[in-house]
């Protein structure tokens, strides 16, 4: 059961609006996602989030940290961005062998000093474990885009993530040094489903699939994001038509097997920002028709460079070669 003394339930309601002070964008988790977070906390297992790019996987960690820890959320949030060369051990700590070698060669440094000097630096996972022991409230560890890592990476993580009591030893230290987390941090792992993860790893996770946002959700996201940069009433009125256009385009690209990179939420938000900045609606380069449809002057989508980021998609959507 949950060990926290001052347990605070995650309800997913803390970021309904843009937080100007902390520059946090709004975040609207579904009821299922909120429950999945609570299930992961109860079982002290990592929450494996999967879904298409732009579905809001990575942002959950930030929103969760903010809801649980308020303005101090950054002290409790550790992000571990995975690369193709990332090793599981780096998440715990890295050891500065080179500095130690230099020190051993430096006659002015005594061997006793070297013995007790800390040559290691905790990684994001190590820091989260340490924080989980020191604090009453749980830290949040985000392991972002696990698919990018080497095939052995998830299996290497197993040893560390296994069991509710998380611990590891810094083996290179001269004095026995062990970091023990009595409580597990909240671990969120994101995956784009680009590669298969081993069954042994999956068995230890709680799963949640984030679907691409529905039109209503996109409208809510778009509105909340635009309100932070523009108070222009015309722009606010345009949002519904812009989102409609985006959703239709997204569906069209999803259905087209030749489409390389279907547009995602981040492209929508960038597109809206550009339109809000340049205000093409002022000179009727962009307007809403009688049926609520979006009308582009010259029938060409405005600022396509923000939406279509693949050459083939560009050609298909615009029917032109931009070279």
């Amino acid at each position: 059961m949950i060990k926290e003394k001052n347990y605070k339930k995650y309800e997913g309601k803390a970021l309904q609006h843009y937080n100007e002070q902390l520059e946090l964008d709004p975040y609207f988790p579904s009821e299922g996602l909120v429950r999945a977070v609570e299930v992961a906390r109860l079982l002290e297992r990592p929450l494996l989030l999967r879904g298409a790019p732009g579905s809001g996987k990575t942002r959950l960690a930030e929103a969760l940290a903010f809801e649980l820890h308020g303005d101090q959320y950054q002290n409790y949030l550790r992000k571990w961005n995975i690369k193709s060369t990332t090793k599981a051990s780096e998440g715990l700590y890295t050891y500065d062998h080179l500095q130690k070698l230099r020190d051993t060669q430096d006659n002015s440094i005594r061997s006793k000093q070297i013995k007790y000097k800390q040559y290691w630096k905790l990684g994001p996972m190590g820091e989260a474990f340490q924080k989980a022991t020191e604090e009453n409230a749980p830290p949040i560890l985000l392991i972002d885009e696990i698919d990018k890592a080497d095939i052995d990476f998830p299996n290497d993580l197993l040893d560390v993530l296994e069991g509710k009591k998380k611990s590891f030893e810094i083996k290179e230290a001269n004095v026995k040094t062990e970091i023990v987390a009595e409580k597990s941090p909240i671990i969120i792992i994101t995956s784009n489903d680009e590669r298969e993860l081993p069954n042994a790893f999956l068995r230890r996770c709680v799963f949640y699939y984030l679907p691409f946002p529905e039109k209503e959700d996109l409208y809510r996201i778009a509105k909340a994001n635009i309100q932070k940069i523009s108070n222009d009433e015309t722009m606010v009125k345009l949002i519904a038509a812009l989102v409609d256009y985006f959703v239709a385009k997204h569906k069209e690209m999803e259905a087209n097997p030749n489409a390389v990179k279907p547009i995602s939420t981040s492209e929508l938000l960038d597109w809206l920002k550009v339109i809000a900045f340049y205000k093409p609606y002022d000179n009727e380069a962009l307007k809403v028709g009688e049926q609520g449809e979006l009308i582009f002057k010259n029938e060409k989508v405005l600022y396509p460079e923000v939406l279509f980021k693949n050459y083939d998609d560009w050609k298909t959507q615009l029917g032109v070669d931009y070279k």
Partner: protein
Amino acid sequence: MEKESFPFYRFFHRLRQEVGIELDLPQYLAFWEVFLGAQPHIENWDQVLDLCKMLWMSRAEYKGSFERIFKEEVAQLCMDLKGKNSEIKPLDREGTHPNLNPTNRFTEGSGSSNDPADFPPATDTHPAKDTSNLGERMGSIYLQFSETDQTDAQGGIESIPCEGELLDNNYLFSEKYSPLLDRRLQQHWKYLRSNHTKKAGTNLDVAGTVKELAQWGRISTPKYLNARENRPKIVLLVDQSPSMVAFEYMEQHFIAAFRASLPKAEIKVGYFYNSPEALYNQKGLKINQLVPKKQENKTAVFIFSDAGAARGNNNSKRITQTRVFLKRLRPDVSTVVWLNPLTEDRWMSSSAEYIAYLVDMLEISPAGMKSLPNLLKHT
């Protein structure tokens, strides 16, 4: 207590047996831990299904089967409860009851109904409410998990990714048959590794740095390990002879699995007729163009052919040509694996039986492909 009487045990077991999800005992226990400890309480079947998905549906592709079995099991559970509480005779599994359609109940929630077929109340008589010795009681079914792990989930029963139907005589009527799941295939191909240097990395090469220190007595610049990425070179040689026509879908399925699981791989496909010696492809390339010399033995070659097993022919010319071909090929590649769509018992007395002595030949089935990771790991 009989294991079958644990609520949702049968659902859990069917997921393992029928869908092939590799679930273990801690995952079953986790379900009960959440079910009993969740605040606020789980209130309707939708939430139970969501919880089961969170804990047991490890891949999105299981969704259809998962939800179907869940509905069946909920219907059965409702019938059992109804039978117990009001002495209504429970219907058999295939039976239907107008008031017990599980699909209707999914969105109804628990409500205030006293109908025992509704979501069972989270108090009183719920059999799993007695959690004091849940772990101990679960121990009695642990043995069964261990025994079935090997057969059910790993090789014995594999879902068939096709849209066919089973005929009365147990033959599968489908043009799209593949004996292996996509994910299983993708897992196999991941063992193909060929690390190519990409760029100078940022990770310190401790061994290299220490070596320099020992050699020169000082460190000029630290040494760094190169960043690497997996870009294996793969050549697929596909038999296009008439006996392989039936396996055309399977070929495409394999090629697609290669491309999906190894997006950075360099994959070339060549075609041949009976023996790979007579190779051709769309551009009329020969084998030495598909596998050029000086490849530093990094290319993996997969031959997709029945090797004569489909017709049971023993063709000495075919065997000789294949031997010559393999002898010439081997110095330039890291591995050669022959994938035979016919089961091993069909190889006997055909050319396949002899060719299997010349090269690692695997039948394309869950059991046959089990040894593939080992073959690939050691290349």
